[in-house]
């Protein structure tokens, strides 16, 4: 198996190359949840997300946790109250436009009815660094990346309960239950192969 990493533009570069590959089962695309967001935010994609790929299987579910710098907010309720008191003066990071960390933050923002500035970063490490430094107020971090830092207590966390029955998360259950509808805070990774184009 040859793994050919084609990062960039939210995964659309790799997807575009895969879409043009022969549909023989030898070329596969491993993509993130952003694959399903990209058609709505990138204009002029050279492929059709639904028509040019055939899904094989999802692979893993990666829960996100809401993290902030330790000194910024006491809990989620406090966060919502502070942002409501000063709309537009807070910001939140993401691992890039259209990424799951971005979408989860938007779902949270809409559900909580708060107004804040989105700051897209190149990836999760950059966003985490800025949150820990306190320059970014919050970030829906993938558990994978946040866990070591949370355990080291360099940032505060409240895992949202999208606790499906099968999920066994290494973190404790959240003590605070959101007043708003709990957003879906899972990002994911799937595997699709190019679908035969109808025109050929």
């Amino acid at each position, binding site marked *: 198996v040859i793994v050919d990493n084609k990062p960039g533009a939210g995964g659309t570069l790799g997807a575009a190359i895969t879409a043009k590959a022969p549909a023989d089962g030898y070329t596969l695309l491993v993509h993130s*949840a952003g694959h*399903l*967001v990209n058609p709505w935010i990138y204009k002029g994609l050279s492929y059709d997300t639904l028509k040019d790929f055939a899904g094989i299987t999802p692979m893993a579910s990666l829960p996100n946790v809401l993290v902030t710098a330790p000194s910024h907010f006491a809990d989620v309720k406090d966060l919502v109250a502070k942002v409501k008191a000063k709309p537009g003066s807070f910001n939140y990071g993401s691992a890039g436009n259209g990424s799951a960390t971005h979408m989860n933050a938007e779902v949270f923002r809409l559900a909580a009815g708060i107004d804040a500035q989105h700051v897209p970063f190149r990836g999760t490490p950059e966003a985490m660094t800025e949150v820990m430094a306190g320059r970014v107020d919050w970030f829906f971090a993938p558990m994978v990346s946040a866990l070591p830092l949370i355990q080291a207590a360099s940032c505060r966390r409240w895992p949202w309960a999208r606790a499906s029955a099968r999920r066994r998360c290494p973190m404790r259950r959240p003590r605070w239950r959101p007043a708003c509808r709990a957003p879906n805070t899972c990002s*994911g990774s799937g595997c699709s*192969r190019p679908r035969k184009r109808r025109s050929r």
Partner: protein
Amino acid sequence: VIDRLQAEVAKIMVSPELKERLEKLGAEPFTMPSAQFNKFIVDETAKAQQVVKAASIKVD
């Protein structure tokens, strides 16, 4: 071909070694038959469209 690939991946994903590795990372295996996955993709893509619209997300 798709079903065979799906079955192979599903087999790997339920292996205890991989499960343990994923859990240590804070992730969990997540598989479903390809027909169901394709429906999932269609549904989730539609949901993404709603969020993008509601939040007026634009890439400059």
